[in-house]
Each structure stands twice: as structure tokens, then as C-alpha cells.
């Protein structure tokens, strides 16, 4: 039995058929609010049930509950406020109870029923969610750049963003059918934004030993310069799965979702999202969703103690390294040998090698994976 959706029911706010036509017609007469790429991505994730039980952007009661209690007003665990920002002049005469057309680059993406318009304290948001008010933190910087008001209410999606990775995109309703078709009852989710090295493979296989299937779910979409391009990550994973995993134990699908770098709170968020995809287990990395040194290396593990009712089991697997004496990938818990025998895998070092066109050693990366990455003229996002 795959995991029950968070809140009990998988949300579907995608308008289809006649209802979609009616909403599109209605939208022609509605006031419009232009949203940026990040909010457009949130819209898709809400509509497709990735953020179940959210039916739209948060109203103040939920916002404050999430900020201070890490729960929705219904008491379901939820750690990241999902909010829509706007300036008073953009909203004009829009009042609570009105419908609003949400556009991106001029195209109507969704219709929203405005339930509430309210003010917010960005510094307080940063303090509670990011545990820092430092504008150098990339998540905090984004919050400080947002507008003065928040608009809460349910949405109906009438159009999708262009998706260059459509063939890799699966939504929760689809993965649930897929897992059932494969006869999987216990599924572990793995979140990533990188090409896989041997350490990732070790962690995934350690988890896979105890469950029926592995759901590799890279986050795609927004990237910063120097990150691996989305198509490179997917090609690298395809190579790994083809050469090093048994048939039919892995599902690889991309997810366009905003990365917030909120460390421990975001680890919970990532787990909830994978629960909605049907996962029963979720691998939580060391310094999961962290950035710089804002969070302790195991804070993202400790926070799970506060959520015994999460409905998905976190798996805390220690970082792996190659031990020359053991002759394989191991971790601190199972290897008695000293540092002189250990080859630690550094993502930065790997990136530098690949950038120079140098194939990383087999103790760090599978040759097929390295070849897949190096088959791209430039595997990295340009500045």
C-alpha cells in the first residue's frame, strides 16, 4: 500500500474540459495579477497535488500556524509557508471574495478565489523559517525581495508552464498508479539536484534493500550558475539506473519545485511532497536542503523527532566514502579504518574535474555516469 496523501486526499485543482473553458472565459473579465516563475511553479505543484492538502495559497491562519507551529490550522505537519505576494497597487480594487486571474508572461495560468489579503513581516518569516535574517542566505534574500501583501485562497489551474522535460515529468496521481502497477508497497523517495556519485548510489541501495522500489526525484527548474543542467542530471541518472540497478526497481522522474534552502524545515517539506507521490520512506541527507553553514550537519535529521505523525518514514543514512582497506563504499558506522584509507567524495572536486574534461576515478563516479555527463558540450548552467 503506497502512502496515503498528506491530509488524506490527493488534491486535484487542474481544470479540465468544459470547466476549463468556462474558467478561461471568465478570466477574460477578471482583474489580473502577473506572477513570476517561482509562483507559477507553486501553482502547478498545488494544482497537481504535490502540496496536498493545500488547495491554494495560504490564508493568514495557516500562514501563522506554519510559521510558529510548523502545522496547518488542521494540525497536519507543514513547515514552509506557500504564499502569493502582491503589491497594493497591483491588486487595485480586488477585494476578498473576488476572483483573480493569475498570469505568467501575460498568459492566464490559474483563476484564484481571493479569500484573504493580509500583511506579513518578512524578517519574522526569515527568522522562523530560515533561522536567520541574514540577507546573504539565498532563501532569505528571495523573501526580502517579495512584495508587501500576501493573497490567500484556492486556485484552479487552467494552463501549464512550458515544460522542456515533459517526458520526465510525473505527477503524484501518475506515480501512485505506476507504483501500484509495479506491485510496490514500500517506496523510498530520493531527492537530488546533482549528478549521482558513488556515495549517492550507496545511500540509495542501502535504502532499497529494505523496500520494493526507489523513486529518484530530481528537482528541476530554477538553477544557479555552476549547477548541473537539468538534462545532464537526468542523463546521468539514466546511465546509472541502466548499468547498476536491477530492472524495474527504480522510477526516475523530474519535479519542478522551488528550492528554498531552508535546511531542516525544508527536509520535512521534501518528505511531505514525496509522501504525496506515494512514497512510504524518504532518504534525508546530511545537511539536507542546507546552504553555507546556516544549519548543523544533522539538524535536518533531528527535526523529524518533532513529527511522529508525518505519515512517511525518514531514513537517515550516513554519508558514504570509499575505503581502500574495506575495498568498497562504506560509512562511519560500518568502517573501522582511519582517514588515511578513506576516499571522500567531494561534489565540488567532482565538478571541477568534469569541468576540466577529466574523468573522475571509479572510486568516486561510475564511468558510464561520467561519460553521460561529459557527452554534453557544457554540463553546467552558465552565468
Amino acid at each position, binding site marked *: *500500500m503506497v502512502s*496515503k*496523501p498528506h491530509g*488524506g486526499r490527493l488534491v486535484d485543482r487542474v481544470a479540465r474540459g468544459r470547466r476549463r473553458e468556462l474558467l478561461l472565459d471568465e478570466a477574460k473579465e477578471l482583474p489580473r495579477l502577473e506572477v513570476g516563475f517561482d509562483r507559477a511553479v507553486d501553482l502547478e505543484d498545488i494544482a497537481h497535488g504535490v502540496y496536498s492538502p493545500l488547495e491554494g495559497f495560504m490564508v493568514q491562519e495557516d500562514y501563522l500556524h506554519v510559521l510558529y507551529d510548523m502545522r496547518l490550522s488542521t494540525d497536519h505537519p507543514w513547515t514552509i509557508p506557500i504564499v502569493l505576494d502582491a503589491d497594493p497597487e497591483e491588486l487595485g480594487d480586488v477585494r476578498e471574495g473576488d476572483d483573480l486571474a493569475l498570469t505568467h508572461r501575460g498568459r492566464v495560468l490559474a483563476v484564484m478565489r481571493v479569500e484573504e489579503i493580509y500583511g506579513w513581516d518578512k524578517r519574522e518569516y526569515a527568522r522562523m523559517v530560515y533561522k536567520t535574517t541574514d540577507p546573504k542566505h539565498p532563501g532569505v534574500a528571495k523573501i526580502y525581495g517579495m512584495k508587501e501583501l500576501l493573497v490567500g485562497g484556492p486556485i484552479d489551474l487552467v494552463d501549464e508552464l512550458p515544460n522542456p522535460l515533459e*517526458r520526465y515529468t*510525473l505527477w503524484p496521481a*501518475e506515480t501512485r*498508479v*505506476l507504483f501500484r502497477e509495479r506491485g510496490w508497497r514500500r517506496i523510498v523517495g530520493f531527492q537530488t539536484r546533482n549528478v549521482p556519485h558513488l556515495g549517492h548510489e550507496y545511500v540509495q541501495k542501502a535504502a532499497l534493500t529494505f523496500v520494493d522500489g526507489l523513486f529518484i526525484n530530481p528537482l528541476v527548474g530554477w538553477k544557479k550558475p555552476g549547477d548541473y543542467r537539468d538534462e545532464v542530471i537526468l542523463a546521468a541518472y539514466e546511465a546509472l539506473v541502466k548499468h547498476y540497478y536491477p530492472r524495474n526497481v527504480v*522510477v526516475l522522474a523530474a519535479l519542478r519545485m522551488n528550492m528554498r534552502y531552508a535546511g531542516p524545515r525544508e527536509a520535512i517539506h521534501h518528505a511531505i511532497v514525496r509522501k504525496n507521490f506515494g512514497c512510504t520512506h524518504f532518504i534525508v541527507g546530511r545537511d539536507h536542503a542546507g546552504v553555507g553553514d546556516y544549519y548543523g550537519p544533522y539538524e535536518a535529521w533531528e527535526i523529524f523527532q518533532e513529527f511522529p505523525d508525518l505519515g512517511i518514514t525518514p531514513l537517515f543514512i550516513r554519508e558514504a566514502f570509499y575505503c581502500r582497506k574495506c575495498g568498497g563504499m562504506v560509512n562511519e558506522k560500518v568502517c573501522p579504518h582511519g582517514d588515511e584509507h578513506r576516499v571522500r567524495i567531494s561534489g565540488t572536486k567532482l565538478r571541477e574535474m568534469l569541468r576540466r574534461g577529466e574523468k573522475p576515478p571509479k572510486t568516486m563516479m561510475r564511468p558510464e555516469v561520467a561519460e553521460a555527463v561529459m557527452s554534453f558540450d557544457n554540463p553546467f548552467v552558465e552565468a
Partner: protein
Amino acid sequence: MSGDKVAVHISKELYEKAKKYIEEQGGFESVEELVEFVLGEVLSEEGGEQVFSEEEEEKVKERLRSLGYI
């Protein structure tokens, strides 16, 4: 038995454990309330799957087939 309720028997050992759990953890007024909650959770999990119409499910499967997932 009163109203819509029926009696269920559980072992004394389990009953004592449940009672101790409530004393230590709180959140429930009685063993009966705890049992109702746990059973409710288990049973709602069984029925928690999204129910597609046959046509909708076939559409999903078609897409999964076309992408090579099944």
C-alpha cells in the same frame, strides 16, 4: 452496548499497555478513544487511495506506457 457502539474484546495485557500509554503521553481520554483512533487511522489508510474513474486511470496508464514506465 449503547447507541451505535459495539463491544470488542482485547487482551488484558494490551489494555494495560494502552492505559499506560495514555497516562504517559496524554492526548486520549480513555482506552476506548485510543482504540477508535488507531482503528480509524488504519482503515482510512486502506481507503486512502485516490479513486480514478476507469477512463481516467486508463489515460494515466496510457501516458505511463508511452513514456516507457510500464
